[in-house]
C-alpha cells in the first residue's frame, strides 16, 4: 500500500515536472518558429483551397521569418483581424496591402485597408 502511494506520488511529480517543461517550450515554439493553421474560405483560390468548400487546406505559418518584419511583395501572410473600391490609395509607411487571389470573394485590404506589418505573422 505504502509502496503504491509512493509510486503515485513519484508519477505525479514526474508528470508535473514534464508539464512545466513541455508547455512553455511548445508555446514558445508555436509563437516564435512555426505553427500549423487551417485555411477557410475561397479568398485565396486557386493558390489555397482550390477544391472550394469541400476541402480546407492546412498550411504551415513561418513565424521565424517574420522576426525582423521583412515582408516581400508576393508573400502570403496571415494576420490578426477582428472584424474603398476602384480608387488608388497610398500604402502608408510600415504598412502592407494584402489581397486574396480570388477577386471579389475575399475579405482583404480592399475592405479593411492597409495593415501594419507588425500584425502579420
Amino acid at each position: 500500500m505504502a509502496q503504491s502511494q509512493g509510486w503515485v506520488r513519484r508519477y505525479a511529480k514526474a508528470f508535473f515536472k514534464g508539464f512545466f517543461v513541455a508547455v512553455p517550450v511548445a508555446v514558445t515554439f508555436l509563437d516564435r518558429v512555426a505553427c500549423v493553421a487551417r485555411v477557410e474560405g475561397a479568398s485565396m483560390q486557386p493558390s489555397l483551397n482550390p477544391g472550394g468548400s469541400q476541402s480546407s487546406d492546412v498550411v504551415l505559418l513561418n513565424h521565424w521569418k517574420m522576426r525582423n518584419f521583412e515582408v516581400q511583395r508576393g508573400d502570403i501572410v496571415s494576420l490578426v483581424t477582428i472584424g474603398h473600391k476602384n480608387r488608388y490609395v497610398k500604402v502608408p509607411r510600415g504598412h502592407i496591402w494584402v489581397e486574396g487571389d480570388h477577386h471579389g470573394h475575399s475579405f482583404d485590404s480592399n475592405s479593411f485597408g492597409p495593415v501594419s506589418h507588425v500584425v502579420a505573422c
Partner: protein
Amino acid sequence: MLRGVLGKTFRLVGYTIQYGCIAHCAFEYVGGVVMCSGPSMEPTIQNSDIVFAENLSRHFYGIQRGDIVIAKSPSDPKSNICKRVIGLEGDKILTNSPSDFFKSHSYVPTGHVWLEGDNLQNSTDSRYYGPIPYGLIRGRIFFKIWPLSDFGFLRDSPNGHRFSDD
C-alpha cells in the same frame, strides 16, 4: 571527464531553453515590468517611469476606453508606444486640436482603436497616424512602480472632454 563536461553543458543548455521559454510565455501572456520614455503621457506617466503592464485583457478583448496601453508603433514595428485609448471601434472621435476653431469628427473603423497621449501638445498619436488595429496592442498599463512617491494605480485622463459623449 569529457562525458561529465558534455553532460553539464547539455544540462545548462536545457535549463537555459526551459527558463527562456517560461520567460517568453510570461512576458507574452501574463505581463511584465516596462520602462516608459518620452513626454507624450505626461503628467500621468513621466519620462523614464517604471510601470507594470498586463497582457491578459488584450487576449480576452477587455481593453476599455480610458485604459493606457502599450502598442507596436504603426510606423516602426520594432518600437513600442504608450498611449491612452480614447475610442473603441464605432466611436465618434474629435480629431481637431483644442486650439482649432472648427470641430472635426471621424469614426473609428471596425477592429481599430483610437489612441492619444495625455500630453496633447507633445504627442504623436492617432491624430497623426489615424486609428490603430487592435492587433497592435501589446498590453495594458495599470500600476506604477517607480518613482515611489507616485506608487500605485494610474490616474484618470486629464483630458476627459475628449472621450465620446455616450
